[in-house]
């Protein structure tokens, strides 16, 4: 099993599965309904090191603030098709 880290640590093209969310109740509910539930696969689309990020989760393209992305913990998944 690979290491668990914040979603904001993924580079574009990398993906991970959600391991948990460190958020207060309101944000937790929003993140969950947007699809960031434990076990969900998240693909990083845009991450320029600063500013908001763009990820793909459950087939939707979601823009996230960097602060919010840092609260989502993901377990890196090695790309199966290229690995």
């Amino acid at each position, binding site marked *: 099993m690979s290491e668990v880290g914040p979603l904001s640590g993924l580079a574009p093209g990398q993906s991970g599965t959600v391991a948990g969310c460190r958020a207060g109740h309101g944000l937790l*509910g929003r993140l969950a309904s947007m699809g960031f539930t434990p076990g969900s696969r998240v693909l990083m689309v845009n991450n320029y090191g600063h500013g908001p990020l763009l990820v793909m989760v459950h087939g*939707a393209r979601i823009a996230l603030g960097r602060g919010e992305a840092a609260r989502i913990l993901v377990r890196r998944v090695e790309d199966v098709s290229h690995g």
Partner: protein
Amino acid sequence: MVELKAPARPRKAASRPLTCCDTTLRQFGLPEGGNAVTVALVGQPNVGKSTVFNLLTGLHQHVGNWPGKTIEQKVGLCQEEGVPLVLVDLPGTYSLTAGSEEERVTRDFIIQQQPDVVVLVADASNLERNLYLLSELVLLPPPIVLALNMVDVAEQNGIAVDAEALSRALGLSVVAMVAAKNVGVRDLLDVVEQIACDQEVYSPARPELRPDHRQVLDTLLQVIEGHVPPPYQPYWVGVKLLEGDREVTELARGWLPAERWEKVHNILFRHEDAILDIAGGRYEWVAAVLEGAQIQHGLGQVTLTERLDRWTTHPIWGLGILGAAAALMFFLVYAVGAPLQGLMEDYLVTAPAAWVTEALQGAPGWVVSLLTDGIIGGAGTMLTFIPILAIFFAALGFFEDTGYMARAAFVMDRFMHLIGLHGRSFLPLFLGFGCNVPAVMGARIVDAPRARLLSILLAPLVPCTARLGVLATLAAAFFGPQAFVVTLTLIVVNLVVLALLGVLLHRVVLRGEQVAFIMELPLYHRPNLQSIGLFVWHHLKAFIVRAATIIVGASLVVWALSNLPTGDIGTSYLAAFGRALEPVGRLAGLNWELMVALLASFVAKENSLAVMGVLFGAGQSGLGLTDLLPTLITPASALGFLAMQMLFIPCVATVAAIKKETGSWAWTLLDLGLLLVVSFAGGIIAYQVGLLLGWG
């Protein structure tokens, strides 16, 4: 043992009298107490829900507000044949948690008004995400029809959806359609009518909780049993309690006796993160439903959305594209809109004024003046802004409908963060370039209350078309070849002031929670002309109504102030007021006439030009205002005036909107006070800069 699934609702007789919506029926000219079927349209933003609504109702729409809410309410009538359908276009939502006003309005309507049928419009190319909403809707009693919209786009993206298999898996009617091409709409109507008249028991597939929380829910349901008043369903209340839904928790606290509430509270306290599990279970349910019904044969192919997003969401290219889009829009507004405004002025102001003067030759002078200067000059001038606003809103509707607006919010997010806002606030503020009123009202889409308030307070600092019109006219008159540079500089300075004030309010007055930025970027699609047309129409209609009410009233007050007691503006109350303020104005190079022009802009920004025309006697001397002004005022004074009028308190219509949206006189007055200080400071600085540049 408590039953685990929500009980199926016995179907009520079709075509029941729609007593709750008698006012709606009256609006559409239907007999009160008559038969009608209520159909609620729900769906995520940008799935073509409005297209379906517009297609079915055309111009038989009534747009208002949800009672007590700041969310737009759209109700329409569809009377093809048989029973009339009253369609309610519920706000676009991703889920039914009470996280936002939209979500609250949607679920309150479905629970309390119990529509006969709920149509869930879903984007067929993004079903995994879209059906999450369905997983929540099936817990509520009204029967659902799933409208699979944009199946053509899905095909292009390599996604084939088997509507029949989906229908079997869900236990619901599913209609495939392409609303933008009017395909499948007839089928949808047939299905809706059939369900409304059907006596069959409605029992769709429903997501189950994961085993560990199922036990918890069981216990919870036993505790609340017998204490949930209709129209609420105990099962739904239990699930929402477990989700940690704030609103339902409050309700339950009121329903339950203290000792039962204590039990509920203890259970919930131990399962605070149940929402992750519940939502996870729903996504699993959606995946299972889709497994046999959706085939992705083009997996991995790069879609149009992905290709476009590489550019539009890039931190540098994305900004460039946004800049180009905004530049194109302003080019259209001024290249096409401004000449049209000139034409409108001839037809709505000059010609009617001349006609009234002609027709009322025997009448007392003040009557003619009241009609020509007061009403035609005030409200008529306001109406000449229609072409400019129409182009502006058409461009905005285009960006919104294609899905581009979300990208603009995305690239602006990092800048908006500096002033304590996030990307979503960019959308309403951008609207402010057209007119500040929709900007203030548009702040509703900002989810966090603090960020919404800040967006509202900053909106008046976005230069609207009227202010830009005054700026362009006067800059051309005073600065000749340098007009463009002066105009651009003033706009940039204006926006910098907006940012600084944002930082100030954010850091000092409105300190608090950092706002979360989470936003779905919808798939791009071809713009729908009818949707854009109606978007423009609704905004213009609201504008015209304002012009006919607030503006006429305010114009009359200003007319009275500028004509009483002598009938000559030079000796009027307004002039006396302007003279009293002259010492302050002097600091910014403003004489009393310019002070009066500034004050008059409170009615409507473009009024300042008209008032200058009167005060300086344009027309009498044979010279037009723009030729006359440079002979009377120095360019430095003009610069002071321009800076001041751009930063000055907004027009009365905007002030009314601020009061309405903040619901607070304190915030409104604080905002006006701040703007007054900022505008005088700006005016003084600009005047001094003008003097330094040798424009004295």
